[in-house]
Each structure stands twice: as structure tokens, then as C-alpha cells.
């Protein structure tokens, strides 16, 4: 069913991560993703993995959901692993046959890269699991607001993003409804070749377009009626405030950064 496509994949909860200021969360996630790439040695990466694990535990998002977020990048993971194993050469040779050689360096790089990618995916999905899309765009708007000096309409962009996100579930619901109505008239969406299936989408696509345009006009009208004129002078219902936990997060992130740099200096570089 269409409905099963989770979007934004927010996982409701009350954990520390859920309650954190979305601005801090966004900035921290962004920062820590950079830190992942600063890691050059296994102990440094280990520290980063520990950080990711602790964050995952704190989020109270079930392991199953986190694993689900890794699934889409599985192919990329396998691909990078294989490439690295065969292409980076050096150190002790574990296995060799014809032109293929598996060396210590190859295995190390492969493992290193895979862990890196997994940490990256898990961190960024923790952000989306614990923050609603609206909060995320809100935070983005705030963090990008300095760009106003370059006459970039940050508010309009954020509003467009919020609206688009807001209407995705509505659209999915609408698609579901139209699909059911056409199925009830005997539309066959499941069988046939590609061309036939593409054609079968017309009865769904056209009503969807029609109602989307209607909805867009109605929304624009409703917003105008409520005197919406853009970002100027707008206040917010939900004020974002930095709390103790946000400061704690910042401190922890900085400690991890310092730790990663130190461990990079004292241990052998892998990459």
C-alpha cells in the first residue's frame, strides 16, 4: 500500500533527543558528520561509533527501526566494501589468486569505510527519527536566517518546504482514496507490462493533479484571508529555547571532537 511509505520517518517519543532544541540537534548532527570524516584511525572511529551508539540508545528508537534506515544503503555498503578490499593494496597479503589480491590495508580500509557510512546514516536518521519535519524546517530557517543579508528569502523557502512536507501525507491519503475508487471500478494496477501499468496510472494521476491544484488555490486563499504576507514581523507559537541538555550536547560533541583529534595523532592512520 502507498501508505506504508514512511515519510520523514518521525518516531514519536519523549527521550532526551526528542526534547532537544531542533537547532542544536541539526547543528550537532551536521557537526558530528564532519567529525566522522575527520576520523583517521580506528580508535578515533571507535570513539565516534561509541558516540553514535549512545545517541541511538538515548533516542529510545527501537533497533529494528534503526536497522531499517541502513537497508537502503546496503548496496552502497557492499559496493564500497568490495571496491576497497580489492583496490587498496599494502601490508600483509591475506589471499591472492591471479590478479586479485586481498591485503591488510584493503581489509582495513573496507571495514573503516563501512563503519563510517553506517555511523553517518545512523546519525542522520536519528535526527529525522526524533524530530518532526516541521520542526526541522523551522530549525533550518532559524539557522539559515543570517543569509537574509544576501537577500535570500529564507522564510519563504522554509514556508514552502513546510507546506510541501505538510501535504505529503495528505497527498498519500488522496492517492490511496483515488486508487481505491478506481480499483472499485475494476482498474487493474498490479498486472501487465510496464507500458500497461504506466497507462493504468492515468486514472489516478489526473484526479490527483486536479485535486492538488484545487487544494493549492484553496490554501493560498486561506493564507491570504488570514493576512499572511510573508516573514516580516512574524512571531512564533513555539519559541525555541536552548536548555541545559542542549548545552550538555554541545559540550559532549566538543569533547568527542577533541578526543578524535588526539586519537588521530597518537594512533596509526588507516586512511
Amino acid at each position, binding site marked *: 500500500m502507498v*501508505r506504508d511509505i514512511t515519510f520523514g520517518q518521525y*518516531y*514519536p517519543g519523549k527521550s532526551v533527543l526528542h526534547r532537544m532544541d531542533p537547532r542544536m540537534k541539526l547543528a550537532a548532527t551536521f557537526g558530528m558528520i564532519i567529525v566522522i570524516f575527520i576520523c583517521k584511525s580506528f580508535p578515533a572511529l571507535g570513539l565516534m561509533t561509541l558516540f553514535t551508539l549512545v545517541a541511538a540508545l538515548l533516542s529510545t528508537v527501537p533497533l529494528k527501526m534503526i536497522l531499517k534506515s541502513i537497508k537502503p544503503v546496503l548496496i552502497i555498503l557492499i559496493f564500497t566494501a568490495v571496491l576497497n578490499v580489492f583496490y587498496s593494496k599494502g601490508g600483509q597479503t591475506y589471499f591472492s589468486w591471479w590478479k586479485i589480491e586481498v591485503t591488510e590495508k584493503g581489509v582495513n580500509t573496507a571495514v573503516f569505510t563501512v563503519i563510517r557510512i553506517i555511523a553517518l546514516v545512523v546519525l542522520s536518521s536519528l535526527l529525522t527519527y526524533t524530530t518532526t519535519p516541521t520542526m526541522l524546517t523551522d530549525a533550518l530557517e532559524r539557522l539559515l536566517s543570517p543569509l537574509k543579508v544576501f537577500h535570500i528569502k529564507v522564510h519563504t523557502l522554509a514556508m514552502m518546504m513546510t507546506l510541501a512536507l505538510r501535504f505529503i501525507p495528505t497527498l498519500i491519503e488522496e492517492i490511496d*482514496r*483515488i486508487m*481505491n*475508487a*478506481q*480499483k*472499485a*471500478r*475494476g*482498474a*487493474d494496477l498490479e498486472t501487465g507490462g510496464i507500458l500497461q501499468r504506466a497507462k493504468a496510472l*492515468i*486514472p*489516478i494521476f*489526473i*484526479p490527483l493533479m*486536479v*485535486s492538488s491544484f484545487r487544494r493549492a488555490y484553496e490554501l493560498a486563499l486561506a493564507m491570504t484571508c488570514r493576512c499572511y504576507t510573508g516573514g516580516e514581523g512574524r512571531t512564533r507559537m513555539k519559541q525555541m529555547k536552548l536548555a541545559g541538555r542542549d548545552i550538555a550536547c554541545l559540550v559532549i560533541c566538543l569533547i568527542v571532537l577533541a578526543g578524535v583529534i588526539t586519537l588521530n595523532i597518537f594512533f596509526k592512520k588507516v586512511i
Partner: protein
Amino acid sequence: MSNAIEVKNLTYYYSEGTPNQVAAIKNVNLAIEKGTMVGIIGHTGSGKSTLISHFNGLLKPAEGNVFVDGEDIWQSKETLRGSRFKVGLCFQYPEYQLFEETVFADISFGPKNMKLSPEEVRERVLEAAEFTGLRKEMLDKSPFDLSGGEKRRAAIAGVMAMKPQTLVFDEPAAGLDPSGRKELIKLIQNYREKTGCTVVIVSHSMEDIARVAERVIVVNDGEIAADGTVDEVYSHSDELRKMGLNVPEITQIFSKLHDMGYDVPGNVYSVEKGAEIILNLIGRGCR
């Protein structure tokens, strides 16, 4: 004879397996005999639409079975597809399903999916258009150029043209003005009289249901709370009110009058009927 639709121990969950899981239908048993006209009422969110979406296999039961014509519809692909043609489902606000260039083409979408010959399709479209009171010249218009009420009729014609044995309407009169409502209900009634098919109508309006249905099923919170003739069900007005349903005002007045000892029946569901009875009564008193 097998039942037109039979539902056994039906349970359905929305968002199954997520934290938002809700049971929309809870262990429902129901049989609808062939040729009857059944009304389904219930408070908003009680699960009416969910229930009827099982009748032609649009939703798959989490537990339990659905039988159409005595056949379990989930037993194979063929029976499932067959159920789509045996049970015609007309959703709430069906006008949003229109998509073809002309009304004619849109009505013929269903019959075409049944792989009928072009002549047969044509015949059925014209017949359905006549039933729903769509004039001939409208058939060549774009469905998006029709008025709201006409769109509704075109959409209903699209389902009728498939000539299903059972027709299920979800709030067919929603959003229409009172005379439009009446006309539409009349139209469904006429269709049934002509074809003798089984009809299920879901409605918020207890007046509409009283006017047409032979049997009323009350759905409350995913369960069947009452099932019987209009008189039987509507006489429990207190219980109905607890489920968020109000029997028509005219019925309330007449049952009060009846309780006060006046010589009027307690089961009056339409203002016309009520007026007739009162006029009769006054007439008698004068003479």
C-alpha cells in the same frame, strides 16, 4: 441461497505494527441477504467506511473472512477481482475519481475493465446515464465542466454501469442540498426497484436511511451496536444518542406525543408523514 455479502469475525487495524496501530473494526459478524436494502449508520469515525471497504476486497482483513456470493474473496486472485465486479462500491465524494475527457468515456471505464464489447459498453453507459438523470448532451462534455451535483451523478453512473449484484454507497448525498439529497436517494431507490439488486447505504442522515432502508445496522467504535428494522433500531433513541446519533426531530416529537397518550404512532421518520398524521388527527377532532 447464499448471502450477497457475509463477513465473519472481521478485525482490521490501521497502521498495523506501528505505535499508531488502531483497531478500526473489531470482530464483526454480518450477513446481508440478496435483494435487501440495508442502511448503515454510525458516528463519524465509527468505522463504516472501513467496514464497507472490505466488501470488495479493497482492504484485507487482519483476521476473519469476507464472503461475496458465498465465496471467500481472498481465496485467489480471480475471486478477489470477481468481487470488484460483483460489489460496486461508490465512495464518499465520488466526483473526485473522474478523469476521462468526456463523461461518456468516464462512465465506460468500469464496463471496459470488465472486457465487454464496445456495443455492450455503450448500451450500459446510456442506461446508467438515464438512471442517474444525465442528459444525453452532457455525455460529450468534460466531466470537469459539470456542476457538483452532476459530477456526483456521473460518478455514480460509472459504478452503476458495471451492473454489480450489490451496490454499496458511502454517504451518497454528502454535501448536497436537501432537494438534491432527496433526489439522489430516490434515484437509488428507483434503481433498486428496476434491477432488484442488493443495496447498502452508509449515511449520517437517519432520515434518509429511514426513508429507504429495510434493515438498519448501527456501527459504533468498530463494532455492530444494533441491527434490525428501522422501527426496532430507532425506538432505542437513548442508546443511539449515547453513540452520538440523533433520531430525527420529528421522530422524537411523535414518540413524546405517543408517550403522552395521543393517538399517534411513535415511529414517524419524515416530516411529510408527520404532517399527514397530524392533519388527519385535527380533521377528526373537528368533525
